[in-house]
């Protein structure tokens, strides 16, 4: 033993190593422990001299009986796939008998996409409009299983009865979105439209939901330029179903006190929550339309020189087109010039938009699967352009899994997988496509889709990909 830096006598390295390895007799071990309790030097040596702990213990081999159950997950997956294939084949077999009745042509003819970058300040945190929970949506809200089953059952029954021949029309900014969902049809029983289906434009009303096909171009939106190709919001969407399902619109007629229509009246629709506004003007018939508007509370201002300005507040529900007929009173001549030194609130350098989604919005919105991409689609101005041209689709039609869309440049696109991938249809016609619609009687027997070009020629297609000229109508 020797006297070290710390006073006292200490166990030597041999005793410490034997202590660490646990080979000391109990009497010596206790002596060592008693010394270690008081001697920080020897404690430090002991802890330093320990072998480092083994990195990872080797996994124990599975018992033999477990190996018998190893293939069960694979078998279960295979069984699930078989059941799915069987169900699909049965469904196809069941529905193959009436091909013409399977044409559930759902048309979403929409305005060109908004140019929200012109309305919104870049980077401004635009609160997401909170949609009512009862709003119909393709994404299933959280419902009790029983209710969900009942809704699905009713929807299926309703669809089988009437939906195949009905034409759902919904305003949309950018997508192939059905205006009504099966769940909505179940909750708002709509009388089945008579067969054959009525030609567009269609107007169907059910409760507070007004569905109508909007003409192309639907409004004379003077202050809203069509979005340039580079106008891509900084939120990229793969599926804009949630957005299209929730958008609304406003239409109406502006007249004077005598009932005469007022053309050229300025319409300003301002969202109270965000301050975002959209402008339009009444056409020669005194009518205006604003579509692709996010649900929420708005202020509608109508001004026309020589008339008094009118203003009213509108509470837009999802997928509702509010009809607003305003009567302007003749006003006194007044002029005012307002000079302000404030910085412009509109970012004119870029057309991109950004917004932030609050936690409450995420919680309140009835989203299916809580996909953030679907959430992003609910932001005003955020929309995907799935078409290869990156232009907004003005009209989208669906038949089974096939989708046909026309972009704002008049180019026709076809998708065989529900809009996941699009390809341009090689035109057999001349000029641009100005109208895409379901085939009208009597062509419904031979075609599902019908398009009209700017040279006023009409073409038909059964599958959306192969087109032939429409036979002359006698």
């Amino acid at each position, binding site marked *: *033993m*020797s006297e*070290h*830096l*710390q*006073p*006292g*006598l*200490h*166990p*030597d*390295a*041999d*005793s*410490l*190593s*034997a202590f*660490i*390895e*646990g*080979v*000391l*007799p109990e*009497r*010596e071990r*206790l*002596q*060592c*422990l*008693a*010394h*270690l*309790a*008081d*001697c*920080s*030097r*020897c*404690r*430090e*040596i*002991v*802890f*330093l*001299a*320990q*072998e*480092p*702990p083994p990195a990872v213990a080797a996994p124990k081999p599975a018992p033999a009986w477990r190996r018998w159950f190893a293939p069960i997950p694979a078998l279960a997956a295979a069984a699930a796939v078989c059941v799915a294939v069987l169900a699909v084949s049965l469904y196809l077999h069941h529905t193959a008998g009436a091909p013409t009745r399977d044409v559930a042509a759902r048309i979403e003819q929409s305005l060109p996409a908004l140019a929200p970058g012109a309305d919104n300040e870049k980077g401004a945190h635009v609160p997401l409009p909170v949609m009512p929970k009862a709003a119909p949506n393709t994404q299933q809200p959280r419902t009790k299983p029983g209710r969900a089953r009942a809704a699905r059952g009713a929807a299926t029954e309703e669809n089988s009865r009437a939906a195949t021949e009905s034409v759902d029309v919904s305003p949309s900014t950018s997508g192939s979105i059905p205006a009504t969902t099966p769940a909505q049809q179940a909750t708002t029983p709509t009388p089945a439209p008579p067969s054959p289906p009525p030609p567009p434009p269609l107007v169907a009303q059910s409760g507070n939901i007004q569905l109508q096909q909007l003409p192309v171009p639907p409004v004379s939106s003077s202050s809203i330029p069509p979005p340039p190709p580079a106008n891509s919001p900084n939120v990229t969407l793969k599926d804009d179903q949630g957005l299209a399902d929730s958008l609304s619109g406003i239409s109406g007629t502006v007249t004077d006190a005598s009932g005469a229509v007022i053309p050229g009246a300025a319409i300003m629709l301002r969202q109270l929550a965000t301050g975002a506004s959209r402008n339009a003007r009444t056409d020669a018939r005194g009518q205006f339309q604003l579509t692709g508007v996010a649900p929420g509370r708005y202020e509608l201002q109508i001004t026309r020189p020589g008339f008094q300005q009118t203003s009213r507040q509108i509470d837009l529900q999802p997928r509702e087109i509010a009809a607003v007929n305003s009567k302007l009173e003749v006003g006194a001549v007044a002029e005012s010039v307002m000079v302000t030194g404030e910085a412009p609130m509109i970012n004119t350098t870029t057309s991109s938009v950004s917004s932030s989604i609050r936690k409450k919005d995420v919680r309140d919105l009835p989203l299916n699967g809580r996909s953030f991409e679907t959430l992003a689609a609910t932001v005003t101005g955020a929309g995907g352009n799935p078409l290869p041209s990156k232009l907004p689709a003005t009209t989208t039609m669906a038949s089974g899994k096939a989708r046909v869309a026309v972009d704002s440049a008049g180019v026709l696109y076809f998708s065989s997988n529900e809009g996941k991938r699009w390809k341009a249809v090689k035109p057999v016609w001349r000029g641009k496509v100005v109208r895409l619609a379901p085939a009208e009687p009597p062509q419904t027997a031979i075609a599902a889709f019908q398009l009209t070009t700017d040279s006023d020629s009409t073409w038909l297609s059964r599958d959306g990909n192969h087109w032939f000229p429409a036979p002359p109508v006698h």
Partner: protein
Amino acid sequence: MGYIDWVDSAPPHSVDFTRPSISSESGEQGLILDRIQEPELCLKELSGVSIDEFWREADAGSVGLRKDELARVLLDLGVKYNYGLAPETAATGAQIVAFWQTLQLQDLALAHACALGRDAAWQQFMVRFREPLRQAAAGITGSAPLGRELADSLYAELFGVTERGEQRRSPLAYYSGRGSLKGFLRATLAQRNVDHHRRASRETPITNEDLPAASPAPIPAPDVLSRLSRSLTATLGSLPPDERFLLSAWFLDQRTLLEISRILRVHEATVSRRLQRLTARLHKELLKNMQASGMSRTAAKEALGTDPRDIDINLRSLLQASRPAAFIQQGALEDPEPR
């Protein structure tokens, strides 16, 4: 350090090696072995087993250790540790053989052959322990260059560079074979490293030392403090060694449960549970001791503080101030001076 020369007058082969050994304060190492002329015979007489058996088992021939040298080492270890028995207990032949058989004979032969400077042993030593020693040194110092430096300095020391007179002195001569040679080398490395740091820490200027923050709580009266100190001393003094080690390692050294559990050879959960129980029991016993010294329960609680964690602070101050008890181990070999 040596042993008393009660073998002076007796013939070497008739020494009663079963007698308990008594440590000496001033003797020199190897006194007994030096005076035994035929250690193989002594060993045979003691255990009834020939040295050949141990020699073969230790593979001592491959490291250049002769039979008589191995026999001397075994005899010396037996006397030193009293064959693994309690002091004042005479060992039987079977117990002697059992003790020698529990030793790491190959490591023991290698270490002592190296201490004697046999080339074959050193070649084998370098092959077996060069890289592990370097890795262990790097792990202990936390740095590869420092570890290499530490390992190299230990090599020189192990080789017996430091000599007393004409005798080579290597730390390997103090290896007993109870643990593994690798563990012995690790402990030696750790010892040298700790001593080096402790020596260097004396040169740390006082301005760099962290001074303890002043306690926000009001300082108790001196008589309360003295009672508290006495109570703590009595309570801690009554604890068994393993519990005191547990408290020191956990509260003073801030060791992890895993580290403590590996030293105590129990599970981490056991260490945690023991700590919890120990802290609670200490709190109770401290209260009891302070009440026994004449304080009321309320005053004792106030002195301790209602928070049991205050005991940690008291333990720390008490244990830090205490001097480590001398390691009184019968026959323990003298540890070489730290370099």
